[in-house]
């Protein structure tokens, strides 16, 4: 576990991560002729190579206890074949079928099951390994760190044991921001680069000819000095704290929590005013419900405003304002439409049926509206995330370098990337031609490693 030789080119080891060294080692790893080596040497080498990848953080003794010589496998049954035959055709004659024809029909017997590639299947059950396999972390060690630092939930409960062996049906969730950090491109945290970017920003500001240009420049210079001294995390928080005082050039960033609260309250008041205005009585049930839903949304956001982060509040406010504008716009044509339909309906049928009809339509449309609001909120979030300095990763978010050759999700996991959650469906299994344990080694190497662990030493 010595840190220095973790990624060595000389004693090349394939590690459980998405590193470019690993990629290079994977690419140049070829079969070699080792006929001159003894069986013990072969087993030792195989064990050494495979253990560097599979559960490298697990102590050898612990792995020896986890090791099982019973390797799980499944057979895929063909219902068509089973309906046609009851199995007696395979036992006819001398006990192995009358001719080879019956065997031909049965595809299962054709390909072999690669049991040996399942040698390290118990390790795939571990929580840290599963998090990495679900593509929520860039290495097993990082996944382990996420668990230990409390960013992971199992079945909805915070859980801090990376060596927990998942049971079939267990769901694990990782904080999406951590996942974005782990899998995202690196943020430019270099002091010099940051300085350059800042100076570029300042010159752009100067050319605009603003009055506050000199003041902002001074402030930013001071900030940059502070940034040089402090660690990246503290600088970001500090600059965020100082921003409202120094800058008024950027409108969005100038909001304090108190301000956002005030604005939200103002929106709520406006929404209430719209709802209680005498004009609304003339409106259709659909529009009324829209207004009611909007009012509810605003009050909910207001109650939650103390908990959510500041930047999130800004987006929601902008979003809500946009929605209100849309509602106001909608109100006038809707009114006209409503009166027109009401007139035509009054001529033909009673007024009660028209209201019913309106309600039926409005329910369906309300769902659409709700969905549209949700979508709008998500879009706003995404826009916000598009350029967010406070994030520990490069924004707008991009996948990190050298991720794609490692991107696969084994079948024993079902992952929902939107919420960064996954379900461990079952234990990995081998089936005809396929072993579900992702291992970079060939069958012979795995078999040698398996043979090494067959006997306890």
């Amino acid at each position: 576990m010595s840190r220095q030789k973790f990624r060595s080119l000389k004693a090349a080891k394939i590690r459980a991560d998405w590193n470019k060294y690993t990629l290079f080692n994977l690419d140049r790893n070829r079969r070699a002729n080792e006929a001159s080596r003894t069986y013990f040497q072969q087993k030792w080498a195989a064990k050494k190579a495979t253990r560097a990848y599979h559960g490298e953080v697990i102590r050898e003794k612990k792995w020896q206890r986890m090791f099982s010589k019973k390797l799980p496998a499944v057979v895929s049954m063909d219902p068509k074949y089973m309906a046609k035959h009851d199995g007696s055709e395979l036992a006819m004659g001398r006990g192995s079928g009358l001719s080879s024809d019956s065997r031909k029909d049965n595809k299962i017997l054709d390909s072999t099951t690669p049991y040996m590639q399942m040698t390290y299947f118990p390790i795939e059950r571990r929580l840290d390994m599963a998090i990495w396999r679900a593509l929520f972390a860039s290495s097993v060690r990082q996944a382990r760190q996420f668990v230990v630092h409390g960013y992971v939930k199992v079945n909805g409960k915070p859980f801090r044991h990376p060596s927990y062996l998942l049971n079939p049906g267990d769901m694990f969730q990782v904080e999406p921001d951590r996942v974005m950090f782990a899998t995202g491109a690196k943020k430019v945290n270099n002091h010099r680069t940051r300085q350059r970017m800042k100076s570029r920003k300042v010159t752009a500001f100067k050319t605009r000819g603003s009055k506050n240009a000199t003041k902002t420049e001074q402030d930013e210079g001071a900030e940059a000095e502070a940034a040089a001294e402090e660690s990246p995390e503290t600088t970001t928080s500090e600059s965020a704290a100082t921003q409202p005082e120094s800058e008024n050039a950027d409108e969005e960033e100038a909001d304090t929590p108190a301000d956002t609260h005030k604005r939200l309250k103002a929106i709520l008041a406006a929404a209430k005013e719209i709802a209680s205005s005498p004009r609304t009585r003339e409106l259709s049930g659909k529009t009324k419900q829209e207004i009611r839903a909007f009012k509810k949304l605003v009050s909910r956001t207001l109650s939650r405003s103390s908990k959510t982060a500041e930047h999130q509040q800004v987006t929601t406010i902008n979003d809500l304002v946009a929605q209100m504008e849309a509602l106001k716009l909608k109100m006038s044509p809707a009114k006209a439409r409503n009166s027109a339909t009401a007139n035509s309906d009054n001529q033909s049928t009673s007024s009660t049926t028209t209201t019913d009809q309106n309600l039926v339509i409005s329910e369906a449309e309300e769902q659409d509206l709700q969905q549209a609001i949700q979508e709008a909120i998500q879009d706003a979030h995404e826009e916000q995330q598009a350029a967010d300095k406070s994030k520990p990763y490069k924004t707008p978010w991009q996948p990190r370098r050298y991720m794609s050759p490692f991107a696969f999700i084994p079948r024993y996991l079902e992952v929902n990337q939107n919420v960064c959650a996954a379900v461990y469906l079952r234990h990995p299994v081998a089936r005809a031609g396929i072993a579900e344990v992702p291992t970079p080694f060939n069958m012979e190497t795995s078999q040698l490693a398996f043979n090494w662990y067959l006997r306890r030493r």
Partner: protein
Amino acid sequence: MPARIRVAAFSRTPLIYSSSTAFQHELRSSSRYTRHFSQSLRSSTVLRDQFYAWLSGPGQNFEKPLPGSTNYLSAYTSDGVLRRQKEETKVDEKEKSQESSAAKVANDGASIDGQNADDPATAMDNPDNTTDTPEEPEELKEEELENDQLKKESLRDLRPFPMNQQFVSESVLSESVREDIYNQVVNKGTHVVKASADANISIERVAAVVRLKQIEKNWLKDGKPLARAYSRAVLSMLPQTTSIAQAHESITDIPILPSTTRQVFHPVPESRHFTRADAAKAFSDNLKPADERMPHQELILTRKLQLQGERQHAIRIKVAQFAAQQEKERIGKREALKRREEKRTTVVAGRRWDFQIKEIKAEDVGYKGKNPKGTGWRYGMPHEDRKRALIKIPERVEA
């Protein structure tokens, strides 16, 4: 003793990357390695240089994902040419004159020097472009054209580990399929087993998809930001099952039990009709035949009825009856377990909590006092939580 393998499998010493002769030529001619004070080369430095040469050569393909496709190691040749593309252009290459092949060698050299950041494959297609650095918009156009023509990956291209032929990156469910399943199960109220059989997705997976989708919906309702950018990027790197009509996975798997992996000598008369049920019994008395262990047994029934020539309507009714019967049995078993547990415990209602009392026998520890079923600590026995090799963290988390 297990069988020995004569031909060894894994090389402990790293193998020198030697896909193209141009690399080695570059390494030899490089002035960085001719030191004034030492005639010998430091091997680690050579290795490092090979590494960086690879990164700026064939390794460049992996830095960013291939748009609209997976991007695994085995999809490329050792020179960094996409195999699919190579196969397509093979015919064209034959037609080309020898002049172009000479230019190709020059291109390879250029790409290794790191001057040309272009994909080697694109460089091969138009040799004129590589002499001077191509402009960005042109590069983009080329890439777009490539992706339009890019064939779908074969099984060969889906192996992330070139050495492991038994591991394939299998497809995941696309967003639309997940949404469809959620609609089927939650909005239309289809039974999970039925939805699983219809979509060819295993029962556990259908349940998991619904569970995860529900969380997503809740987040949407609460206005909690989803990791959409991440989701889009990751899904574009994976092979996907894009429609419910596509068969996603095998839904009729049965586990191979250890009792069935041994060979059994079970003599029976030749005239005997020896079925799967008999075979199961020969292995173990408790073993059920494959027909009863398989999930989706209704599929066998459907096929059987079809073979008997029954009408579609009749088949549907019978299968529905069968499924209902199975569901009833499943619920009955669960209820029975619950009842048994209730019978064992006496509940005494308290002011704030109910006390659940179970009967414990002191004799459960057995003759030697070491039976793990026994309750309580016995004099001289070490505490379980102090023992080596015992799991001391939770073994399950209640949902």
